[in-house]
């Protein structure tokens, strides 16, 4: 792998940028791998990378039906934070946060991780009680967090309406300074490039249409374009399509797939240097390095795989944003899109063995999977390498929906993002 550096950039400028290496190979799949990862999004690519790097398993294929990072990885609003309530999930998201902090160096690829802070606003007495409980829990877990009053919020975001005038006045907020945003495409590309350099085969436009099973154990996958590819272990990281994959393998998951929409405005001058989220009026906004406001909110209530949602959902989102930021009322919106999120009943992911031996699923991240990309990949890689749940992934078994040990993160997952 050609190492990226400032010096390299100058060097390539001298040769008119004609000698850059391809970022990853485009290999033909082998007949058999140690591990197959189904799904080439951020989480799948991260899993492959950490399997190769941490566990020394390099005979891996990542099978992607479209192109790398073309699903939810390319459709989210890039918010990164780790202020979850319960120990199990806070540990997982904080694990991700620690990896984020060194990710650009680790991958030798600038993922533009910017720790500009995340505000979660409270508009009611109950909101504030929840915020205080969560921030106190976070501090015990070793995660940074503060409770701010409206005056302190005003200092951070001066043009937000912190007065008594809005229908739901801002009463306070939780503030995680280490939270922020990262460039979503770069995360997928960075992981893909680094995994490829370690010998992982990234196979694009290779849709898995069935799992091959013998005596209740998965031995490979049937693909549309390359026939049967065998593997000792299979990790399925297919987000919104996880239920469809599970149905192929012959079992059900406690998931429902919903469209989640987001939109960006025309680029404007720097105006917002942090991330603002509100569960109560249900909207969130940040400003990208390009200058556009990145806005999102709730899922559409119905099940859907269409990567688009209803317009009234967008209307509600924009209403909430204008309520918080009257100054944005005349900003024009540029693009709008939808992704398919696999929501879990307890708003926590599933990183789990399944009823089929050697087949593992990493899914159910719902509306907030992007922030967990490195941690999810790292934890799932450990699970795949060991062939069983690790200390970190044990609470996230799909069988928690049988024994009732749910991890209710609806409060901290809050606004869908």
């Amino acid at each position, binding site marked *: 792998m050609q190492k990226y550096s400032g010096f390299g950039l100058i060097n390539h400028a001298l040769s008119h940028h004609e000698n850059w290496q391809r970022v990853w190979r485009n290999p033909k799949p082998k007949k058999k791998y140690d591990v197959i990862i189904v799904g080439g999004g951020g989480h799948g690519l991260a899993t492959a990378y950490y399997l190769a790097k941490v566990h020394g398993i390099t005979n891996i294929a990542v099978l992607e039906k479209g192109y790398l990072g073309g699903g939810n990885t390319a459709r989210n609003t890039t918010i990164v934070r780790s202020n979850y309530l319960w120990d199990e999930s806070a540990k997982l998201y904080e694990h991700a946060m620690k990896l984020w902090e060194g990710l650009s160096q680790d991958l030798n690829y600038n993922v533009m991780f910017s720790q500009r802070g995340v505000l979660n606003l409270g508009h009611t007495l109950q909101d504030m009680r929840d915020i205080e409980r969560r921030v106190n829990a976070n501090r015990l877990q070793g995660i940074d967090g503060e409770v701010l009053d409206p005056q302190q919020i005003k200092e951070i975001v001066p043009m937000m309406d912190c007065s008594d005038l809005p229908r739901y006045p801002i009463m306070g907020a939780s503030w995680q300074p280490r939270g922020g945003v990262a460039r979503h495409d770069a995360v997928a590309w960075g992981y893909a490039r680094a995994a490829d350099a370690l010998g992982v085969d990234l196979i694009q436009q290779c849709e898995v249409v069935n799992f091959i099973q013998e005596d209740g154990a998965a031995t490979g996958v049937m693909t549309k374009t390359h026939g049967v590819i065998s593997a000792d272990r299979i990790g399925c990281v297919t987000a919104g399509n996880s239920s469809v994959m599970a149905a192929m393998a012959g079992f059900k998951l406690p998931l429902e797939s919903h469209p989640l929409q987001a939109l960006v405005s025309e680029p404007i001058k720097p105006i917002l240097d942090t991330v603002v989220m509100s569960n109560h009026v249900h909207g969130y906004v940040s400003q990208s390095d390009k200058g556009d406001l990145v806005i999102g909110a709730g899922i559409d209530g119905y099940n859907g795989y269409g990567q688009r949602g209803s317009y009234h959902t967008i209307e509600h989102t924009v209403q909430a944003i204008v309520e918080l930021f009257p100054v944005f009322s005349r900003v024009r919106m540029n693009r709008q899109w939808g992704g398919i999120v696999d929501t879990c009943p307890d708003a926590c992911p599933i990183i789990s063995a399944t009823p089929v031996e050697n087949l593992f699923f990493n899914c159910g991240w719902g509306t907030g999977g992007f922030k967990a990309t490195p941690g999810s990949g790292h934890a799932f890689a450990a699970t795949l390498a060991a062939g069983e749940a690790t200390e970190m992934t044990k609470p996230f078994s799909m069988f928690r*929906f*049988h024994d*009732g040990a749910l991890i209710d993160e609806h409060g901290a997952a809050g606004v869908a993002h």
Partner: protein
Amino acid sequence: MFYIYCPHCEEHREEEEFHASGEAHIPRPLDPESCSDEEWGEYMFFRTNPRGIHHELWVHAVGCRKFFNMTRDTQSYLILETYKIGEKPSITSAAAKLQAQTKVQEGV
């Protein structure tokens, strides 16, 4: 936005009047006390979540406030039918498959 026919009001209304309530035709176990954890978990949480024809429960939340069923394609979002609780869907994925097969055969 969907334009939904409420089988109780017998008219089309806009989607904002309705609320989607998930998969339909999930019978509550007759004797919950005798369910195993697995059976109860399956009933409570596990869903088919198909990509394609889906039977789902909707409520006319700001209209008649009654529940009804809908058959809808989760890929194309096409609403195929709405029907009252207790009635059977006339369009099912099995029936659609059969129809597609006969079409192919007619083509031959």
